[in-house]
């Protein structure tokens, strides 16, 4: 789903040449058209915030810090791909430019779990 290289993280998506759509995480067929010509693609690490909220109460199965930002980011490239993601930063609002970053949160045993966020 992701590739981690030192402190760098990349989102591993899928791309269907026949439908033209990218998706994340990579699936067996294009989730928007059913096309089965999915190829692996590294997704861009920059995007624009469409929506943003704060999660104040830890949901079941999550052992990381609260509050944390959650929202929808539209990644660069066409046609647009929107993903639900964690968000960080002082200037998170619709239209803000954000960049992908590695974030570690504790798992159930307190061990670091690598995940991703987008930062302003």
């Amino acid at each position, binding site marked *: 789903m992701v590739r981690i290289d030192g402190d760098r993280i990349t989102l591993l998506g899928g791309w269907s040449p026949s439908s033209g759509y990218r*998706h994340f995480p990579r699936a067996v067929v294009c989730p928007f058209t059913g096309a089965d010509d999915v190829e692996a693609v590294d997704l861009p690490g920059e995007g624009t915030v469409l929506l943003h909220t*704060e999660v104040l109460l830890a949901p079941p*199965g*999550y052992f990381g810090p609260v509050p*944390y930002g959650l929202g*929808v980011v539209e990644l660069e490239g066409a*046609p647009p791909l929107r993903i*639900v993601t*964690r968000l960080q930063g002082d200037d998170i609002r619709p239209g803000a430019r954000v960049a992908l970053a590695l974030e570690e949160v504790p798992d159930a045993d307190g061990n670091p779990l690598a995940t991703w966020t987008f930062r302003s």
Partner: protein
Amino acid sequence: MTDVRITGVGMHPFGRFDGLTGTDMGVVAVRSALDEAGLNARQVQAAFCGTAYGGVAAGHRVLGALAGTGIPIVDVEAGCASGGAALQLGAASIASGQYDRVLVFGLEKMPKGVIRSSFFAPWQEAGGLSPAPAYFALRAQRLLLDTGLTREHLAQVVVKNRRNGVDNPDAMFQKAVTVDEVLAARMICDPLTLFMLCSPNEGAAALVLEGGAEGVTVAGISLRSHLPGNVLGEDSPLCGIEDADITSPTELAATDAYRQAGVGPTEVDVVECQDTDSGRELLAWAELGLCAAGDQDRLLADGSTLLGGRIPVNPSGGLLSKGEPLGASALGQVVEITRQLRGTVKDRQVDGARVGLSHVIGRGANACVTILTR
């Protein structure tokens, strides 16, 4: 096709009932519906039970407690639309001529706190990507950004529904609130405060269906799922595409149900719709054709959706007053609409109602729209 009529309805109130099992509540609702129909559990030919958290053979446990076994008993899970899915199966079995008398019921005893859903994979939970209220909040934000509606409009929906719930003895909350109280309540996920979100809880509802055109009939019912692509859809995908042209599951189901019933939105007298959060209700108004998208503020301003208005929505108090026991919520709406069409509701009757619509939408995604006529 045989016409499908509702000959009995029953409820166990929605709320929190320590010491009662889901089966106990199902028995209360089913017995009440059977009593109204003048039947016992041995006289129905099939049973369809909606539940999401009821566990293995939840329907069998209820029918077993009433000695009504030997018949086919089918448990149905379709998230918040579980009861609607059970009703669609039950109604189809009458319409097709397979059976003459069936029982449709729903029950739930939800865990307390934020609901853990097996829908999400462990890695999504561990990464903090599973908080349902945040998804509702993002959709509500989108609604406000797209339409110019405001937090005050979200609060007005809560005020309307909680006012209606005051007169519903089956509701969990029977206390009115003000716009100021709703806005000042604890923030759960911006822009949704505690009062703008319904409470998962416990309860049961039941219907007896029989063939025939007398009384209240099921004129249309449709259960639909999502089309792909909407990142804010109830199917909670991790990614999506531009979605302006993607028809929502509620619109799909409503189009079917209106066509089956041969009526349009302007002919509907009373509506019960999904108000998981108050933004979800405002979205449904447009999806069901009660108004154009973005015109919800007009309906709020002119009182159209209040009791006594042109098209009262959620006269029962909605899920914001009743709480949401997933398997029972859809059928709770149908019980309310049935009683409204019969004209037997005390204090919150919609005078002269002859066409009623109920709507649920939730995880899956699953949406169900039911149209009843008298």
